[in-house]
């Protein structure tokens, strides 16, 4: 009775979303291309129909369907329809759209495990309701033959359902026992099986008490907890995969002078790759042709771009800024320095693996305790009455009463509510225990470039130079896509300057731009190119004729909410530290601006890791916030970690929480929510314990009828769920 997925689903992942279209597509053309678009701004019925109308009207599109829950459109179209064209068509009607890599997404569309759990939950719910109906008749006075018949019918319903619905528990319990361990599922399995066996025995002897309803209600409540838990993680996983899928891995391969677009996975050592300005290097290699500047911020944290020309070795992950490059690949895929750097992560002992979740802590106390209690009741009653039947009945009652219905719901209900709340604020909780760990932190370590700052430069000394010179600089900068040039154009336009008239404008990739202005040669570019001394600060130089070069300095802009996040974290009593790979002056300036007294500049990835480990060794619980590859080791070593959505894939994978928006302010709120959630979890444990303290003596004394068991179980589960909902 599982939900079988259609075979061959991986070839056509979103067909499951539109079975009718699948049939249609197979009649038409067998080779329909699957395209997925991310639509982050859609929110209403009008948006859905507007986007669907545009996509369905596009020539070559056979079927398009928008999924509002995932904010995604899945499209079946003939292979010649280019995804970029569809993205442009959707943008033309005013909705943001991005292409998603269908290969990365295919895993989420086949949600087999979720359906499986949902099906078992539904069957258990159906059976529990029907058996409860019969049980209520028994409790309200049905006697003799009628009671026996009701019990037998209950047994008939219960047996197959218990076999089917309880499987997740049996499997987990068996896996734990085989390795000589105890987990929550062992007492659960024992309680369910013992309840059914004693009830069958009682029924066959026409006894008064049967626990069929308890066994089913137990299964139902526990499955509900499991399903909630699964949903929370599935939503986070699918959103995380969507982030990864946003980077469609394609490269331009040069072969016999011809450029072809190929997936990055197909590149081999020795291939020639063409890289345009703005592109990220997919492989390690050597520059064969072209000059440029490379942005290495993701790898090292430096904000100043590095010059690169033929013969120079380049690493995967660097971004090409100005010139067109031809690169011969020397290492691809897992061998690239990008991956080797990510391997540091494997060496760093993960904060995650060291942490024992609250649920596990509870299970460690609980599982042996329950077995001992129930075993003692059996032995005690056996020696008191010398009757196996009575003793077994009471042992089963003890197990049913103590069974962790409330415990099983206590954690998932709270984490579901808290994750949902944070998700609406733009935070994605990736790890199950992330909230509990986040609640404990007392030290926050920030990376600078790309985390506290936006990673885009801003011109700082516009007014130190004559407006005429700035007008020339603007005109020169307008001819380049370099981030510093764009910063000059933005700053000039904001100050109301008009670009000067310049002729013979040309860009020298890797150096700068030059042109003719009023009969003089003017240049804007690197220090060495215009004959100036390079300083530590990020700067471009302007030379007019043969005059002294003017220095244009730049600073990195703060990310939105950075100041607020730092201030609020301090207010909550956290120690805030900044560690960056960037040069000292830039780091010092930013630290002063944010009021961070503890900072460290020019830190290597291993030094960041060492600092985190030193802090942990000193007993601090560290939250690491970072985005670069040089942060990944630190991210995984920290007690909890957060990375912005703009971070490299490797950094996002290493962190527990991903910030979906550009704003940093939710970090402080997340810490508060996490603390509130942990409080709720502890409250829920208290509720569950109190209920056990009241009910267990009754069960041990043999006074616990099936009616009391059913009432206590339902009441505690509902109390715990309602308490979790208070978090919203």
């Amino acid at each position, binding site marked *: *009775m599982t*939900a079988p997925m259609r075979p061959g689903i991986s070839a056509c992942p979103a067909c*499951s*979303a539109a*079975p009718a279209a699948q049939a249609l597509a197979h009649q038409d053309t067998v080779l329909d291309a699957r395209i997925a678009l991310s639509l982050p701004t859609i929110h*209403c*019925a*009008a948006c*859905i*129909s507007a986007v669907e109308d545009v996509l369905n009207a596009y020539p070559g599109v056979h079927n398009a369907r*928008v*999924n*509002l*829950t*995932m904010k995604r459109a899945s499209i079946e179209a003939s292979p010649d329809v280019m995804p970029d064209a569809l993205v442009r068509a959707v943008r033309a009607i005013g909705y943001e759209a991005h292409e998603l890599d269908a290969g990365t997404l295919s895993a989420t569309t086949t949600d087999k495990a979720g*359906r499986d759990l*949902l*099906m078992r939950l*539904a*069957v258990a719910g*159906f059976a529990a*309701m*029907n058996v409860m*109906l*019969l049980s209520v008749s028994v409790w309200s006075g049905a006697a003799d033959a*009628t009671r026996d*018949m009701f019990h037998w*019918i209950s047994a008939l*319903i219960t047996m197959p359902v218990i076999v089917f619905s309880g499987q997740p528990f049996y499997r987990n319990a068996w896996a734990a026992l085989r390795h000589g361990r105890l987990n929550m599922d062992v007492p659960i399995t024992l309680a369910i099986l013992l309840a059914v066996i004693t009830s069958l025995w009682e029924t066959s002897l026409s006894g008064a008490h049967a626990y069929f309803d308890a066994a089913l209600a137990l299964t139902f409540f526990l499955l509900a907890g499991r399903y909630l838990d699964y949903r929370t993680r599935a939503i986070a996983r699918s959103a995380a995969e969507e982030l990864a899928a946003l980077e469609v891995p394609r490269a331009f391969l040069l072969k016999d002078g011809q450029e072809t677009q190929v997936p990055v996975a197909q590149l081999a050592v020795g291939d020639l790759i063409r890289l345009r300005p703005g592109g990220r290097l997919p492989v390690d290699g050597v520059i064969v042709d072209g000059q440029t500047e490379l942005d290495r911020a993701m790898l090292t944290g430096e904000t100043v771009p590095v010059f690169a020309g033929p013969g120079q070795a380049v690493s995967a992950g660097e971004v090409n800024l100005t010139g067109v490059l031809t690169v011969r690949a020397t290492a691809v895929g897992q061998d690239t320095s990008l991956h080797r750097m990510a391997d540091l992560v494997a060496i760093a002992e993960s904060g995650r693996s060291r942490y024992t979740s609250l649920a596990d802590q509870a299970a460690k106390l609980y599982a042996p305790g329950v077995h001992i209690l129930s075993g003692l009741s059996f032995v005690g009653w056996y020696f008191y009455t010398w009757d196996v039947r009575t003793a077994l009945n009471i042992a089963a009652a003890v197990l049913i009463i103590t069974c962790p219905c409330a415990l099983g719901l206590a954690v998932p209900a709270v984490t579901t509510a808290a994750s949902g709340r944070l998700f609406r604020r733009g935070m994605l909780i990736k790890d199950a225990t992330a909230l509990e760990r986040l609640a404990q932190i007392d030290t926050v370590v920030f990376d600078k470039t790309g985390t506290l700052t936006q990673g885009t430069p801003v011109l700082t000394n516009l007014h130190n130079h004559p407006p005429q010179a700035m007008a020339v600089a603007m005109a020169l900068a307008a001819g380049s896509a370099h981030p510093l040039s764009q910063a000059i154009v933005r700053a000039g336009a904001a100050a109301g300057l008009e670009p000067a008239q310049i002729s013979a404008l040309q860009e020298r990739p890797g150096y700068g731009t030059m042109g003719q202005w009023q009969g003089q040669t003017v240049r804007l570019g690197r220090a060495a190119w215009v004959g100036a001394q390079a300083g530590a600060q990020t700067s471009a130089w302007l030379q007019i004729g043969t005059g002294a070069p003017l220095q244009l300095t730049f600073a990195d802009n703060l990310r939105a909410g950075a100041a607020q996040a730092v201030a609020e974290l301090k207010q909550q009593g956290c120690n805030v530290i900044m560690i960056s790979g960037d040069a000292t002056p830039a780091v010092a300036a930013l630290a002063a601006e944010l009021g961070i007294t503890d900072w460290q500049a020019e830190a290597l990835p291993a030094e960041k890791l060492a600092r985190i480990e030193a802090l942990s060794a000193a007993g601090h619980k560290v939250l690491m916030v970072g985005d670069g590859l040089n942060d990944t080791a630190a991210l995984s070593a920290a007690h909890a970690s957060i990375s912005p959505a703009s971070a490299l894939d490797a950094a996002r994978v290493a962190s527990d929480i991903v910030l979906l928006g550009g704003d940093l302010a939710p970090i402080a709120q997340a810490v508060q929510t996490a603390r509130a959630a942990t409080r709720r979890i502890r409250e829920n444990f208290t509720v569950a314990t109190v209920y056990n303290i009241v009910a267990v003596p009754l069960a041990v004394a043999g006074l616990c009828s099936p009616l009391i068991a059913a009432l206590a179980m339902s009441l505690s589960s509902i109390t715990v769920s309602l308490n979790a909902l208070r978090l919203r």
Partner: protein
Amino acid sequence: MEILVILIPVSLLLGGAGLLFFVWTVKSNQYDDPDGDAQRILSGQWDDHPKP
């Protein structure tokens, strides 16, 4: 009490029908997009005739 012979099978059949109905909704992907389904009701697009 003879009425039970009819009532119990009837209640089980009705419940079973509900269960089968639920299984069908799961298998035909009706829980893939709850937010979208809630919004699509408001669209007047297929009010006159169903989507072909």
